[in-house]
């Protein structure tokens, strides 16, 4: 009888252990219905990441992964509210620029002690990737990519303007040349030279930041905002000269600027690495005006090469422990194992073994933007990253959408960023 009871107890324990561990997952990238579990066939950020998650759900024994409904624009607000309410997702994606804020408060877990057990080898991560997830000596996440602003090029329009040499686009090396090239495209094709989302999401901000970094300047230094200066004015006027001459339209938002590029109405689209596979697929379609697609590194218009970059990473809440933590770590390991699949989006991989693989080198257009990794930059870490980006976006929009005086806008931006740094 005694044996029977012990046996039953053991059986019960085993049974409990065997029931699936449910891991909730929060992410942005947008929704993808029917992503399937084939991580090699999906196209676009949303579908590729969802296919990896679906595959994890199907392949990991004893673990089910549930993707929570979240929305791109309000993602961090939702995540913060979830943490504040004590119900964060077991696994969630975030940007490296948010690490100071989340790790600083003790929200996300230092997982340096969990990596080995989960089968993640941090020595395979590139040096920059490790730096991206490190904070005050700890490792606060599993890096997934580097993403950066690129110049997406319509080669047919460039060729018509005589801006193609050896099968590569000829890109400007100074603001003056930028204006000159833009005029050449306009004269030859009647189309705009450059499109980007200057009107809503901060693509225009990232462009101006890159041009400031190219002059070895930055928007703040320690606790001092440094925006109202010549470097910022040069960066801004490099763009406004195109708007003033009617060679680019500042009023297009993300969807409209992308559509303009795909319709063959702009020779260059400034956008991130995340759309390379999508544009490749679009360019192959008969009905899409863009036929001859090329991806270029962000050109250097000033002294040093620089382009805006950030990193996606996966973190788990510090409150997670026991089996739940182990299960969450297994999901992170699965995502880490599929780094090559994620790189199909166009993002740069973080694992040396992937970076050096033939499969990676063979990804479409990959050889065209190899210089980007070396010029990737971002603003200094700050807990107020989001608010600072918002200030810049507002004041820059004021310049190109409402005709606000450049000096006045930069002075206002500096004052407001200073307020944020002082708070």
């Amino acid at each position, binding site marked *: 009888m005694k044996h029977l009871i012990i046996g039953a107890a053991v059986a019960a324990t085993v049974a409990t252990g065997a029931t699936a561990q449910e891991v909730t997952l929060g992410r942005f990238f947008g929704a993808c219905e029917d992503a399937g579990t084939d991580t090699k066939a999906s196209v676009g950020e949303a579908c590729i990441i969802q296919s990896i998650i679906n595959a994890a759900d199907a392949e990991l024994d004893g673990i089910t992964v549930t993707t929570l409904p979240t929305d791109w624009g309000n993602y961090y607000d939702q995540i913060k509210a979830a943490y504040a309410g004590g119900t964060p997702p077991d696994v969630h994606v975030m940007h490296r620029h948010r690490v100071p804020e989340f790790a600083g408060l003790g929200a996300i877990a230092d997982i340096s002690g969990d990596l080995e057990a989960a089968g993640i080898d941090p020595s395979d991560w590139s040096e920059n990737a490790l730096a991206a997830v490190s904070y005050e000596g700890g490792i606060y996440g599993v890096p997934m990519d580097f993403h950066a602003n690129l110049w997406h090029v319509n080669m047919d329009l460039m060729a018509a303007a005589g801006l193609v040499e050896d099968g590569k686009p000829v890109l400007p090396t100074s603001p003056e040349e930028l204006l000159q090239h833009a005029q050449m495209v306009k004269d030859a094709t009647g189309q705009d030279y450059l499109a980007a989302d200057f009107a809503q999401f901060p693509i225009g901000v990232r462009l101006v930041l890159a041009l400031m970094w190219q002059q070895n300047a930055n928007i703040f230094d320690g606790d001092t905002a440094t925006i109202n200066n010549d470097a910022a004015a040069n960066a801004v006027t490099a763009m406004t000269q195109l708007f003033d001459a009617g060679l680019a339209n500042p*009023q*297009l938002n993300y969807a409209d600027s992308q559509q303009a590029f795909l319709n063959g109405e702009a020779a260059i689209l400034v956008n991130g690495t995340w759309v390379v596979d999508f544009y490749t697929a679009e360019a192959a379609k008969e009905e899409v005006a863009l036929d001859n697609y090329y991806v270029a590194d962000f050109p250097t218009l000033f002294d040093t090469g620089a382009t805006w970059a950030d990193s996606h990473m996966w973190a788990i809440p510090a409150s997670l422990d026991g089996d739940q933590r182990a299960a969450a770590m297994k999901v992170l390991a699965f995502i880490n194992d599929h780094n090559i699949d994620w790189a199909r989006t166009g993002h740069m991989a973080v694992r040396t073994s992937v970076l050096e693989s033939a499969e990676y080198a063979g990804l479409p257009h990959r050889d065209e933007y190899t210089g980007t990794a070396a010029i990737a930059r971002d603003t200094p870490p700050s807990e107020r990253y989001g608010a600072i980006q*918002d200030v810049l976006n507002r004041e820059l929009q004021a310049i190109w959408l*409402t005709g606000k005086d450049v000096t006045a806008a930069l002075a206002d931006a500096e004052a407001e960023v200073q307020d944020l740094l002082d708070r």
Partner: protein
Amino acid sequence: MTGQTRQKRRITQGQAAFVLLLPFLATYALFLVYPFLRGIWISLHDWNLLAVAFNPDAKEFVGLRNYERVMWGRNIEWGAVASPLLQGIGAAGVALSVFLRRAGRVSKVTAIALGLASALLFVLPGFHPGEGGRWYDRRFWPTVGNTLVFVGWTVPGVTVAALLIAAALNRETRAMSVYRTLFFLSQILSVTVVTLIWQIMFSPRQGLIANVTEAFGGSPIVWLTDERFAMAAIVITTIWWSLGIAMILFLAGMQDISKDLYEAGALDNATGARAFWYITLPNLKRTITLVIVLQVILQFQVFGQAHLMTQGGPNDTTQVLVRYIYQTAFRDSELGRASAMAVFLFVIMGGFSILQFVLGREDDQ
């Protein structure tokens, strides 16, 4: 014996009423009174959303500093002509209310309400940063201004449009009931659907409006990113969305008007537009007041349209109060400051509720 029973029953009735009210009172206290008081409590603290969640002691009592940081500034001065247009209207409003009251054209309460509103319009825009001064929060008052502009366009827009549609549909035919349903349909959509529909409508590339403009040879307007049109786009969307409920209220009011009045009016040659002006409108006075006040309170809380269609842009021209509160609380994690703004919004909306109460009582007399 009978008396005793009656007395007993009366007590039971009072108790029964209390018992029946209890679930409501409990819910009301738990979900409205308590959060409201807690909101005021939070607004008196330096309260970081995340930090306090992980460490309840991370908050600091700061008294009214959040209110000062949001609404006040350094070297703020007051001038009678700092904002000539608004203050001029305010001064004229005060004069008008005094005149109307003296002439006996309006009641005492209306005169006081109008006078008070005008006085506020005269006093508030007069504050401005003096030499070397600045607002501590440079976005707060412009945001309040944007919200007022939004309310100022949307409420009359909804009221007039709903009134006209209701008048046109106030007939007992099958076609009219179909139209009534159609006009009400927009109301049941959620803000996400409404804004999605209108973002497509306003799109300079695929949008219906752009196609119509182009068909007439004009160049399409980039509605959502042009500072002259962004607010208009949001107002149009909101009017389309909020028509339904106002229309139903007006229809109900119109059906309450006695047919005899119209028959008597017809004998005096008052039909069509005249009948509308001389019979329908005066009889709808209370409904119109109700619709306006409900709309004012509702539209002050605008959030989804600005958040989803323009993200408050371009250059903050469509940034509205609730969106600013939301950003301050959840993006910037500054719960105390956000609560102070929320209390400010409550005061404004409370003011309009009191106004409705006053006007409604006046009609009873």
